[in-house]
Protein backbone atom coordinates (compact mmCIF):
# COMPACT_ATOMS: atom_id res chain seq x y z
CA UNK A 1 0.00 0.00 0.00
CA UNK A 2 1.42 3.39 -1.08
CA UNK A 3 4.54 1.39 -1.94
CA UNK A 4 5.06 0.56 1.74
CA UNK A 5 5.36 -2.94 3.15
CA UNK A 6 5.64 -4.11 6.73
CA UNK A 7 9.21 -5.29 6.25
CA UNK A 8 10.27 -1.78 5.14
CA UNK A 9 8.70 0.11 8.04
CA UNK A 10 11.06 2.07 10.30
CA UNK A 11 11.96 0.47 13.63
CA UNK A 12 9.56 2.63 15.65
CA UNK A 13 6.63 1.58 13.46
CA UNK A 14 7.64 -2.09 13.78
CA UNK A 15 7.72 -1.77 17.57
CA UNK A 16 4.35 -0.02 17.50
CA UNK A 17 2.74 -2.78 15.39
CA UNK A 18 4.26 -5.54 17.51
CA UNK A 19 3.00 -4.01 20.74
CA UNK A 20 -0.47 -3.57 19.24
CA UNK A 21 -0.55 -7.28 18.37
CA UNK A 22 0.74 -8.21 21.83
CA UNK A 23 -1.82 -6.01 23.60
CA UNK A 24 -4.75 -7.24 21.53
CA UNK A 25 -3.57 -10.85 21.90
CA UNK A 26 -3.48 -10.56 25.68
CA UNK A 27 -6.90 -8.90 25.58
CA UNK A 28 -8.23 -11.83 23.53
CA UNK A 29 -6.84 -14.30 26.06
CA UNK A 30 -8.49 -12.40 28.91
CA UNK A 31 -11.79 -12.27 27.03
CA UNK A 32 -11.55 -16.01 26.28
CA UNK A 33 -10.92 -16.78 29.95
CA UNK A 34 -13.82 -14.60 31.06
CA UNK A 35 -16.19 -16.21 28.55
CA UNK A 36 -15.03 -19.69 29.59
CA UNK A 37 -15.50 -19.08 33.32
CA UNK A 38 -18.62 -16.91 33.32
CA UNK A 39 -20.66 -18.59 30.57
CA UNK A 40 -18.80 -21.50 28.97
CA UNK A 41 -17.48 -22.07 25.49
CA UNK A 42 -19.80 -24.71 24.05
CA UNK A 43 -22.92 -23.87 22.07
CA UNK A 44 -25.08 -25.42 24.81
CA UNK A 45 -23.46 -23.20 27.46
CA UNK A 46 -24.11 -20.14 25.32
CA UNK A 47 -27.71 -21.20 24.67
CA UNK A 48 -28.26 -21.76 28.41
CA UNK A 49 -27.15 -18.21 29.15
CA UNK A 50 -28.85 -16.44 26.26
CA UNK A 51 -31.99 -18.34 25.33
CA UNK A 52 -35.24 -17.16 26.92
CA UNK A 53 -36.17 -19.05 30.04
CA UNK A 54 -38.63 -21.84 29.29
CA UNK A 55 -41.20 -23.13 31.79
CA UNK A 56 -40.03 -26.18 33.75
CA UNK A 57 -43.62 -27.30 34.27
CA UNK A 58 -44.59 -27.49 30.59
CA UNK A 59 -47.08 -24.71 31.33
CA UNK A 60 -48.90 -24.17 28.06
CA UNK A 61 -49.43 -20.84 26.34
CA UNK A 62 -52.35 -19.08 28.01
CA UNK A 63 -52.26 -21.37 31.05
CA UNK A 64 -52.07 -19.29 34.23
CA UNK A 65 -50.19 -21.69 36.50
CA UNK A 66 -48.74 -25.18 36.69
CA UNK A 67 -46.83 -27.21 39.24
CA UNK A 68 -44.72 -30.32 39.20
CA UNK A 69 -42.42 -32.18 41.54
CA UNK A 70 -38.80 -31.22 41.26
CA UNK A 71 -35.66 -33.23 41.67
CA UNK A 72 -33.41 -30.72 43.41
CA UNK A 73 -30.56 -32.04 41.25
CA UNK A 74 -32.24 -30.34 38.29
CA UNK A 75 -31.24 -27.00 39.74
CA UNK A 76 -27.84 -25.80 38.75
CA UNK A 77 -25.21 -26.18 41.43
CA UNK A 78 -22.83 -24.14 39.35
CA UNK A 79 -22.76 -20.39 39.33
CA UNK A 80 -24.67 -19.55 36.18
CA UNK A 81 -24.90 -16.24 34.37
CA UNK A 82 -28.09 -15.36 32.54
CA UNK A 83 -27.78 -12.69 29.92
CA UNK A 84 -31.11 -10.92 29.75
CA UNK A 85 -32.26 -8.55 27.04
CA UNK A 86 -31.07 -5.26 28.65
CA UNK A 87 -27.65 -6.82 29.26
CA UNK A 88 -27.65 -8.17 25.69
CA UNK A 89 -28.25 -4.64 24.37
CA UNK A 90 -25.41 -3.31 26.53
CA UNK A 91 -23.06 -6.13 25.53
CA UNK A 92 -23.95 -5.75 21.84
CA UNK A 93 -23.25 -2.06 21.53
CA UNK A 94 -20.00 -2.15 23.49
CA UNK A 95 -18.70 -5.25 21.71
CA UNK A 96 -19.72 -4.03 18.25
CA UNK A 97 -17.85 -0.78 18.79
CA UNK A 98 -14.89 -2.35 20.57
CA UNK A 99 -14.36 -5.40 18.37
CA UNK A 100 -14.92 -3.45 15.13
CA UNK A 101 -12.30 -0.91 16.18
CA UNK A 102 -9.87 -3.70 17.08
CA UNK A 103 -10.59 -5.43 13.76
CA UNK A 104 -10.02 -2.08 12.06
CA UNK A 105 -6.65 -1.57 13.72
CA UNK A 106 -5.56 -5.11 12.83
CA UNK A 107 -6.75 -4.57 9.27
CA UNK A 108 -5.02 -1.23 9.00
CA UNK A 109 -1.66 -2.81 9.85
CA UNK A 110 -2.35 -5.80 7.63
CA UNK A 111 -3.01 -3.51 4.64
CA UNK A 112 0.78 -3.02 4.50
CA UNK A 113 1.57 -6.73 4.26
CA UNK A 114 2.86 -8.09 0.96
CA UNK A 115 0.25 -10.87 0.79
CA UNK A 116 -1.72 -10.95 -2.49
CA UNK A 117 -4.80 -8.72 -2.70
CA UNK A 118 -7.39 -11.50 -2.63
CA UNK A 119 -5.83 -13.31 0.31
CA UNK A 120 -5.39 -10.00 2.09
CA UNK A 121 -9.03 -9.08 1.57
CA UNK A 122 -10.26 -12.43 2.92
CA UNK A 123 -7.98 -12.52 5.96
CA UNK A 124 -8.63 -8.88 6.78
CA UNK A 125 -12.39 -9.50 6.70
CA UNK A 126 -12.29 -12.40 9.20
CA UNK A 127 -12.34 -10.36 12.45
CA UNK A 128 -15.16 -8.16 11.13
CA UNK A 129 -17.23 -11.15 10.01
CA UNK A 130 -16.48 -12.94 13.30
CA UNK A 131 -17.76 -9.96 15.29
CA UNK A 132 -21.00 -9.81 13.33
CA UNK A 133 -21.57 -13.57 13.63
CA UNK A 134 -20.82 -13.40 17.34
CA UNK A 135 -23.24 -10.59 18.19
CA UNK A 136 -25.82 -11.60 15.59
CA UNK A 137 -25.75 -15.13 16.97
CA UNK A 138 -26.52 -13.82 20.46
CA UNK A 139 -29.66 -12.04 19.24
CA UNK A 140 -30.80 -14.99 17.14
CA UNK A 141 -30.26 -17.33 20.09
CA UNK A 142 -32.41 -15.17 22.32
CA UNK A 143 -35.20 -14.29 19.92
CA UNK A 144 -35.23 -16.84 17.07
CA UNK A 145 -33.94 -20.29 18.01
CA UNK A 146 -31.58 -21.43 20.82
CA UNK A 147 -29.59 -23.58 18.36
CA UNK A 148 -28.24 -20.40 16.79
CA UNK A 149 -25.88 -20.35 19.81
CA UNK A 150 -23.44 -22.22 17.58
CA UNK A 151 -23.01 -18.95 15.64
CA UNK A 152 -21.58 -17.29 18.75
CA UNK A 153 -18.91 -19.98 18.99
CA UNK A 154 -18.21 -19.83 15.25
CA UNK A 155 -18.06 -16.02 15.38
CA UNK A 156 -15.59 -16.01 18.27
CA UNK A 157 -13.45 -18.63 16.51
CA UNK A 158 -13.53 -16.65 13.25
CA UNK A 159 -12.39 -13.51 15.07
CA UNK A 160 -9.59 -15.48 16.75
CA UNK A 161 -8.54 -17.11 13.45
CA UNK A 162 -8.43 -13.70 11.77
CA UNK A 163 -6.36 -12.23 14.60
CA UNK A 164 -3.92 -15.18 14.54
CA UNK A 165 -3.43 -15.06 10.76
CA UNK A 166 -2.98 -11.29 10.73
CA UNK A 167 -0.61 -11.31 13.71
CA UNK A 168 1.53 -14.23 12.52
CA UNK A 169 1.85 -13.01 8.92
CA UNK A 170 2.46 -9.40 9.98
CA UNK A 171 5.02 -10.28 12.66
CA UNK A 172 6.85 -12.52 10.17
CA UNK A 173 6.98 -9.70 7.65
CA UNK A 174 7.91 -7.10 10.28
CA UNK A 175 10.84 -8.93 11.78
CA UNK A 176 11.90 -11.93 9.66
CA UNK A 177 11.13 -11.33 6.01
CA UNK A 178 14.07 -10.07 3.98
CA UNK A 179 12.94 -7.47 1.46
CA UNK A 180 14.54 -7.99 -1.95
CA UNK A 181 16.39 -4.80 -2.82
CA UNK A 182 16.06 -3.64 -6.40
Amino acid at each position, binding site marked *: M*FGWTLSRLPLSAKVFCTLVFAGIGLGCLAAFTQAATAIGLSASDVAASLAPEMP*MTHMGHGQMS*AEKELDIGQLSSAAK*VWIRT*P*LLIQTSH*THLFGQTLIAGLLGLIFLFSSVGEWKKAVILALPFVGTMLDIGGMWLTRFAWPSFAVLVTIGGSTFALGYCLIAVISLYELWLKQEAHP
Partner: protein
Amino acid sequence: MKQRRIIIALIQAFWLVVGGGVALAHVTPPVVLISDRDAVLAMTAGAKKFFVREVRLTPNEREALRQQRGWQPDEDFYRFYLGRDDAGKLVTAVMFLTEVTIHGPVRVAVGLGPDGKVKDAKVVELSEETFPWLKPLIDLDFTRDYVARDSRASFGLSQRVEQMHLESMPLFYAQIVASLIQRAALLFDLTLLKRDGKI
Protein backbone atom coordinates in the same frame (compact mmCIF):
# COMPACT_ATOMS: atom_id res chain seq x y z
CA MET B 1 7.25 12.22 2.45
CA LYS B 2 3.67 13.47 2.21
CA GLN B 3 2.40 9.90 1.93
CA ARG B 4 4.33 8.94 5.04
CA ARG B 5 2.82 11.81 7.02
CA ILE B 6 -0.67 10.79 5.90
CA ILE B 7 -0.11 7.21 6.99
CA ILE B 8 1.27 8.19 10.38
CA ALA B 9 -1.62 10.62 10.95
CA LEU B 10 -4.07 7.90 9.93
CA ILE B 11 -2.56 5.44 12.41
CA GLN B 12 -2.53 8.01 15.22
CA ALA B 13 -6.16 8.98 14.60
CA PHE B 14 -7.21 5.37 14.54
CA TRP B 15 -5.36 4.63 17.77
CA LEU B 16 -7.14 7.51 19.52
CA VAL B 17 -10.49 6.15 18.39
CA VAL B 18 -9.55 2.65 19.54
CA GLY B 19 -8.54 4.03 22.95
CA GLY B 20 -11.90 5.73 23.30
CA GLY B 21 -13.71 2.66 22.06
CA VAL B 22 -11.99 0.36 24.51
CA ALA B 23 -12.85 2.74 27.34
CA LEU B 24 -16.47 2.70 26.25
CA ALA B 25 -16.50 -1.05 25.68
CA HIS B 26 -16.56 -1.66 29.38
CA VAL B 27 -18.77 -4.51 30.48
CA THR B 28 -18.31 -5.54 34.05
CA PRO B 29 -18.29 -9.30 34.62
CA PRO B 30 -20.93 -10.84 36.87
CA VAL B 31 -20.25 -11.95 40.41
CA VAL B 32 -22.31 -14.99 41.41
CA LEU B 33 -22.33 -15.34 45.18
CA ILE B 34 -24.40 -18.52 45.49
CA SER B 35 -25.85 -21.06 43.05
CA ASP B 36 -29.60 -21.52 42.63
CA ARG B 37 -29.49 -24.97 44.18
CA ASP B 38 -27.57 -23.81 47.23
CA ALA B 39 -29.91 -20.86 47.72
CA VAL B 40 -33.03 -23.07 47.50
CA LEU B 41 -31.56 -25.69 49.86
CA ALA B 42 -30.47 -23.04 52.36
CA MET B 43 -33.91 -21.45 52.46
CA THR B 44 -36.02 -24.60 52.59
CA ALA B 45 -34.50 -26.28 55.64
CA GLY B 46 -36.94 -28.93 56.89
CA ALA B 47 -38.49 -29.57 53.49
CA LYS B 48 -38.67 -33.19 52.32
CA LYS B 49 -40.01 -32.70 48.83
CA PHE B 50 -39.52 -30.02 46.26
CA PHE B 51 -41.90 -28.67 43.66
CA VAL B 52 -41.74 -25.97 41.05
CA ARG B 53 -44.78 -23.76 40.51
CA GLU B 54 -44.90 -21.37 37.58
CA VAL B 55 -47.47 -18.62 37.34
CA ARG B 56 -48.52 -16.06 34.78
CA LEU B 57 -50.01 -12.74 35.77
CA THR B 58 -53.36 -11.76 34.30
CA PRO B 59 -53.57 -8.34 32.60
CA ASN B 60 -55.60 -7.11 35.60
CA GLU B 61 -52.94 -8.30 38.03
CA ARG B 62 -50.20 -6.60 36.02
CA GLU B 63 -52.20 -3.38 35.94
CA ALA B 64 -52.90 -3.56 39.67
CA LEU B 65 -49.18 -3.93 40.42
CA ARG B 66 -48.36 -1.04 38.13
CA GLN B 67 -50.97 1.31 39.58
CA GLN B 68 -50.73 0.39 43.25
CA ARG B 69 -47.05 -0.45 43.59
CA GLY B 70 -45.43 1.38 40.69
CA TRP B 71 -43.91 -1.84 39.35
CA GLN B 72 -44.48 -3.06 35.82
CA PRO B 73 -43.82 -6.82 35.72
CA ASP B 74 -42.19 -7.73 32.41
CA GLU B 75 -41.55 -11.47 32.63
CA ASP B 76 -43.75 -13.93 30.74
CA PHE B 77 -44.03 -16.06 33.87
CA TYR B 78 -42.67 -16.22 37.41
CA ARG B 79 -41.30 -19.30 39.13
CA PHE B 80 -41.51 -20.44 42.74
CA TYR B 81 -39.52 -23.35 44.14
CA LEU B 82 -41.69 -24.89 46.83
CA GLY B 83 -40.23 -26.95 49.68
CA ARG B 84 -42.86 -29.12 51.40
CA ASP B 85 -42.79 -31.36 54.46
CA ASP B 86 -43.82 -35.02 54.58
CA ALA B 87 -47.47 -34.06 54.91
CA GLY B 88 -47.27 -31.88 51.81
CA LYS B 89 -47.48 -28.60 53.72
CA LEU B 90 -45.47 -25.70 52.37
CA VAL B 91 -42.33 -24.97 54.37
CA THR B 92 -40.86 -22.22 52.17
CA ALA B 93 -41.38 -20.89 48.67
CA VAL B 94 -38.23 -19.53 47.06
CA MET B 95 -38.25 -17.04 44.25
CA PHE B 96 -35.42 -15.47 42.22
CA LEU B 97 -35.92 -11.95 40.94
CA THR B 98 -33.57 -9.71 38.95
CA GLU B 99 -33.28 -6.00 38.33
CA VAL B 100 -31.04 -5.02 35.44
CA THR B 101 -29.43 -1.68 36.26
CA ILE B 102 -27.06 0.50 34.27
CA HIS B 103 -24.22 -1.13 36.25
CA GLY B 104 -25.39 -4.69 35.55
CA PRO B 105 -27.89 -7.14 37.00
CA VAL B 106 -28.74 -7.59 40.67
CA ARG B 107 -30.39 -10.95 41.41
CA VAL B 108 -31.97 -11.82 44.71
CA ALA B 109 -33.37 -15.07 46.15
CA VAL B 110 -36.32 -14.61 48.51
CA GLY B 111 -37.75 -17.29 50.81
CA LEU B 112 -41.40 -16.86 51.82
CA GLY B 113 -43.41 -18.75 54.41
CA PRO B 114 -46.94 -20.13 53.89
CA ASP B 115 -48.34 -16.88 55.35
CA GLY B 116 -46.57 -14.82 52.68
CA LYS B 117 -44.04 -13.37 55.10
CA VAL B 118 -40.37 -13.12 54.16
CA LYS B 119 -38.33 -15.84 55.88
CA ASP B 120 -34.98 -15.15 54.25
CA ALA B 121 -33.44 -13.20 51.39
CA LYS B 122 -30.01 -13.34 49.79
CA VAL B 123 -28.24 -11.42 47.04
CA VAL B 124 -27.19 -14.19 44.66
CA GLU B 125 -25.73 -12.31 41.68
CA LEU B 126 -24.49 -8.82 40.91
CA SER B 127 -21.85 -7.20 38.77
CA GLU B 128 -18.23 -6.49 39.65
CA GLU B 129 -19.09 -2.81 39.62
CA THR B 130 -21.97 -3.07 42.08
CA PHE B 131 -20.29 -5.63 44.33
CA PRO B 132 -18.11 -3.13 46.29
CA TRP B 133 -21.18 -0.94 46.88
CA LEU B 134 -23.25 -3.78 48.27
CA LYS B 135 -20.52 -5.79 50.02
CA PRO B 136 -20.62 -3.87 53.34
CA LEU B 137 -24.38 -4.38 53.44
CA ILE B 138 -24.16 -8.05 52.48
CA ASP B 139 -21.56 -8.53 55.23
CA LEU B 140 -24.02 -6.89 57.60
CA ASP B 141 -26.72 -9.35 56.42
CA PHE B 142 -28.96 -6.35 55.75
CA THR B 143 -31.65 -8.46 54.06
CA ARG B 144 -32.40 -9.87 57.53
CA ASP B 145 -34.18 -6.58 58.24
CA TYR B 146 -37.00 -7.60 55.90
CA VAL B 147 -37.72 -10.94 57.57
CA ALA B 148 -41.34 -11.28 58.78
CA ARG B 149 -42.58 -8.55 56.43
CA ASP B 150 -45.35 -9.35 53.99
CA SER B 151 -46.60 -7.69 50.83
CA ARG B 152 -48.44 -4.95 52.78
CA ALA B 153 -45.39 -3.89 54.80
CA SER B 154 -42.98 -1.08 54.04
CA PHE B 155 -39.76 -2.11 52.31
CA GLY B 156 -37.79 1.07 52.84
CA LEU B 157 -34.26 1.06 54.21
CA SER B 158 -33.97 -0.09 57.78
CA GLN B 159 -32.79 2.14 60.60
CA ARG B 160 -29.49 0.33 61.01
CA VAL B 161 -28.69 0.78 57.30
CA GLU B 162 -29.58 4.47 57.46
CA GLN B 163 -27.40 4.89 60.53
CA MET B 164 -24.39 3.63 58.58
CA HIS B 165 -24.30 6.97 56.68
CA LEU B 166 -23.41 5.25 53.43
CA GLU B 167 -22.69 6.91 50.11
CA SER B 168 -25.50 7.28 47.60
CA MET B 169 -24.66 4.21 45.49
CA PRO B 170 -24.75 1.62 48.31
CA LEU B 171 -28.04 3.15 49.44
CA PHE B 172 -29.41 3.05 45.90
CA TYR B 173 -28.55 -0.64 45.51
CA ALA B 174 -29.80 -1.48 49.00
CA GLN B 175 -33.14 -0.01 47.94
CA ILE B 176 -33.11 -2.07 44.75
CA VAL B 177 -32.57 -5.26 46.76
CA ALA B 178 -35.37 -4.26 49.13
CA SER B 179 -37.68 -3.63 46.15
CA LEU B 180 -36.93 -7.08 44.76
CA ILE B 181 -37.78 -8.67 48.11
CA GLN B 182 -41.04 -6.73 48.15
CA ARG B 183 -41.85 -7.85 44.60
CA ALA B 184 -41.43 -11.49 45.63
CA ALA B 185 -43.83 -10.94 48.53
CA LEU B 186 -46.31 -9.23 46.20
CA LEU B 187 -46.16 -12.03 43.65
CA PHE B 188 -46.58 -14.70 46.31
CA ASP B 189 -49.57 -12.87 47.74
CA LEU B 190 -51.15 -12.23 44.35
CA THR B 191 -50.59 -15.54 42.60
CA LEU B 192 -50.46 -18.11 45.39
CA LEU B 193 -52.43 -16.77 48.34
CA LYS B 194 -55.14 -14.66 46.70
CA ARG B 195 -55.70 -16.51 43.47
CA ASP B 196 -56.86 -19.86 44.74
CA GLY B 197 -55.43 -20.05 48.25
CA LYS B 198 -54.00 -23.47 47.46
CA ILE B 199 -50.32 -23.62 48.18
